[in-house]
């Protein structure tokens, strides 16, 4: 066991090594150090606080037990993010199988938990309501994306990781991350910006729907009339 003050001074890598050597507190210090950011990633990737909590717990168990499999060629935090994101993606896929839940019933709570932090200490009520509404819309739109696109956008656009880092986290090529982000943003633009009042972001679709047909008044095309008896 190590002095707590000494624990907090140790690097991620040192803490992981200490955990492997049997230090019973090292992993807790390591995980707590990154917990809030891992929570943020889990929350936005899973889209629901309960699923995020489940995924984070699952990731904790997995990382704790398999710390020995950490290759050491990436940062510890990247590896932790990878474990968390994979737990989230597993959970999303399992949920998809379980039931096609369009959106959680408690979207208000979903939007609010873990997301109330803001740089404005006391926004005006109307501004706060508008911001909350906008955030809810963004999260709902995000939830419609395929999970790989969602994870890429959460890590790159929300959390600010570089494409290279995200490629490591998602275990794919940087080009794949860029492509997932591009497709995801395009879809979000269509969902979020198309119907903004007073704005028209895109040209109307080229293949416009045909106008509804007008009922014919031509008696020749009317149903045959029964002859009078």
């Amino acid at each position, binding site marked *: 066991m190590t002095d707590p003050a000494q624990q907090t001074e140790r690097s991620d890598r040192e803490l992981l090594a200490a955990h492997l050597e049997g230090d019973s507190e090292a992993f807790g210090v390591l995980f707590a150090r990154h917990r809030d950011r891992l929570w943020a990633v889990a929350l936005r990737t899973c889209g629901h606080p309960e699923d995020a909590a489940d995924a*984070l*717990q699952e990731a904790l168990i997995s990382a704790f037990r398999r710390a020995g499999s950490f290759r050491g060629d990436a940062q510890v935090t990247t590896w932790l993010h990878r474990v968390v994101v994979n737990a989230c993606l597993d959970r999303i896929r399992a949920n998809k199988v379980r039931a096609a839940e369009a959106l959680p019933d408690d979207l208000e709570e979903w939007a609010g938990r873990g997301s109330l932090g803001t740089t404005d200490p006391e926004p005006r009520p109307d501004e706060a309501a508008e911001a909350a509404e906008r955030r809810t819309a963004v999260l709902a739109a995000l939830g419609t994306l395929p999970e790989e696109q969602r994870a890429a956008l959460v890590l790159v656009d929300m959390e600010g990781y570089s494409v290279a880092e995200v490629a490591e986290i998602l275990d794919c090529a940087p080009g794949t991350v860029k492509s997932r982000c591009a497709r995801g943003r395009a879809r979000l633009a269509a969902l979020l910006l198309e119907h903004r009042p007073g704005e028209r972001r895109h040209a109307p679709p080229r293949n416009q729907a045909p106008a509804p047909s007008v009922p014919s008044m031509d008696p020749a095309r009317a149903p045959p009339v029964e002859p009078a008896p």
Partner: protein
Amino acid sequence: MPDQPSDDDLAEVRRLLRAARAEGPAPDDVVARLDETLATLVAERSPAEPVDELVARRAKRRRVIAGAGLVAAATVVAAGFLGQLVGSGDEADRASDDRPALSLDEQEAGQAEASTPGDAGMDKGTPLREAPAASEYAARSDKPLNRDERRAVRYTLERLTTGHTPQTDLLGSLSTVAFCPAGVADDAVVVPIQVAGSLQALLLRPLESDGSRKVEVVDCSVDPPVTTDSVTVPPSPSRK
């Protein structure tokens, strides 16, 4: 095909995403849950912990069951758990080492590939200090309970603690590892509980088509395990 969004549109999307990021700390209940899980994991690593005693007891019982006769084995074959019950134990260990956990839902969905995205962050080496008993029961004990399952547990515990029943405690999923032969819980999620000091298990059977779920209370300390109670959990209101 619709027009591609403009650069301004994409910049606006990125701004909206950035504004919608989760900035607060992890909620207290989540932190508490993680701390509890971590404490259990640490306890599992310690040879003096009670979990290991349970593991040893369970291993002993498994040997007894394996030699008990072909009737039990035939039942298990039908349930698809022969390898887990009468195998050496190592096979089951290896199977479950391939991934951290496999939920019942995933099994039902036929997603039990040896390699899954969940392993992407791990090298395929021998995990360090894997809890010795996690192998046989990983499929149903390591995975956190989902919402429906938690609701079923709450509902059942409320029923069990109503009236005269002595104190019932939920022990947490990780300590499940020492309970209940696989053949008893073949299609169930197992949740350990303590009823009046006696270790028992809730077997959460799969959801019925109407959304209800049968939960059995099983005393796994005897051979064969005995079902001491049974509760039918009504469908979740949100499913209606």
